[in-house]
């Protein structure tokens, strides 16, 4: 009897609470970019092996999400955006999240190694380590560069997908990594501009908290400009082509225009219209990344259908 009444006090977790620990929305980005990395590679993969590999990459990404929520449950409790996550809301204990994260990390890496190859598994293990130890435990609370370096964790999935197919690393997979890596700072700093209060309260040293919004707007513009050549290099690589070239041209024009608009705005202007331009730029950044990887997929489809442009220059 005593066990029952004790269990009733802590709300018993539903299955969905454990699933929420895996950060399903981040996972969808991981699944998509890993799948593109795998599908655009010049080596065909058996569909079941491909599906299983992407599943294990997704589980590995989810495991790092659970470990991140375990480590950051104190911050999550303070921030509005994250207050309803399973741990701060009391539905799952921090220790359960840690155990789930550790077990799923080990299982996903081992299964990816057995299903695909050990280079892919090694990259997945490094990604989990990077996100949990380097980003969550070390950088996030200590430096405003947290997003810049931590972005590497989110950028690895297409490289892992490529490694599943080819068993190696090449200029194409490095450029796919670079695309997400350089995209992360403007994406998160735009979010930080209109979520500033949350980060201030939680004491996370995001750039607008430590260096002010003026500097953040400048850095967004700088990183957006640095990001633009990456798409161009991809366009003239083995996995690029004219369709991707046109897409990256249009997307970069939109992104740079948006960043310039943010740079010209003052905090007063932003507050006056409730951060409308900042929110718009944030949404545009999501489109930017999805469309770039979608464009690579289109090029792969065209090559597969024999519609690739034979004369397209491959410079790298």
């Amino acid at each position, binding site marked *: 009897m005593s066990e029952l009444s004790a269990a009733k006090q802590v709300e018993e977790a539903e*299955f969905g609470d454990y699933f929420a620990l895996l950060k399903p929305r981040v996972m969808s980005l991981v699944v998509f970019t890993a799948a593109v990395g795998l599908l655009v590679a010049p080596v065909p993969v058996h569909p079941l092996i491909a599906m299983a590999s992407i599943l294990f990459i997704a589980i590995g990404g989810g495991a790092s999400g659970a470990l991140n929520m375990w480590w950051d449950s104190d911050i999550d409790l303070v921030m509005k955006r994250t207050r309803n996550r399973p741990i701060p809301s009391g539905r799952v204990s921090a220790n359960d999240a840690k155990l789930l994260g550790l077990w799923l990390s080990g299982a996903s890496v081992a299964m990816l190694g057995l299903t695909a190859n050990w280079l892919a598994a090694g990259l997945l293990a490094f990604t989990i380590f990077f996100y949990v130890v380097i980003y969550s435990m070390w950088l996030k609370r200590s430096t405003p560069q947290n997003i810049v370096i931590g972005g590497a964790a989110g950028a690895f999935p297409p490289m892992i997908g490529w490694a599943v197919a080819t068993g190696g690393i090449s200029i194409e997979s490095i450029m796919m990594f670079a695309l997400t890596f350089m995209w992360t700072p403007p994406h998160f700093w735009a979010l930080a501009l209109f979520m500033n209060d949350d980060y201030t309260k939680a004491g996370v040293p995001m750039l607008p908290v430590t260096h002010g919004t003026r500097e953040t707007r400048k850095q967004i513009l700088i990183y957006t400009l640095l990001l633009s050549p990456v798409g161009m290099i991809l366009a003239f690589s083995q996995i690029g082509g004219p369709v991707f070239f046109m897409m990256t041209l249009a997307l970069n024009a939109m992104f740079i225009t948006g960043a310039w608009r943010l740079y010209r705005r003052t905090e007063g202007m932003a507050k006056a219209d409730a951060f409308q331009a900042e929110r718009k730029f944030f949404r545009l950044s999501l489109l930017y990344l999805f469309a770039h990887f979608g464009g690579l997929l289109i090029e792969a489809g065209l090559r597969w259908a024999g519609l690739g442009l034979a004369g397209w220059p491959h410079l790298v």
Partner: protein
Amino acid sequence: MMAINKPHELHQRRFRRNLWVGLILGGFVVLVFGITMVKISNGQKMEAFDHVVRPSLVEEAK
């Protein structure tokens, strides 16, 4: 020991959770089986060192 005859809301939650875990484990078994079938039909070597001499592995080493 007194038996519980009326299932508490808690038991229903636990049952749902266990059902999901069971389905996932079942799915995992099917997946591993499928991967095995693909690897074997692709002619991949499914043998490794097993503390006894394996002629097929010795052949390959030559």
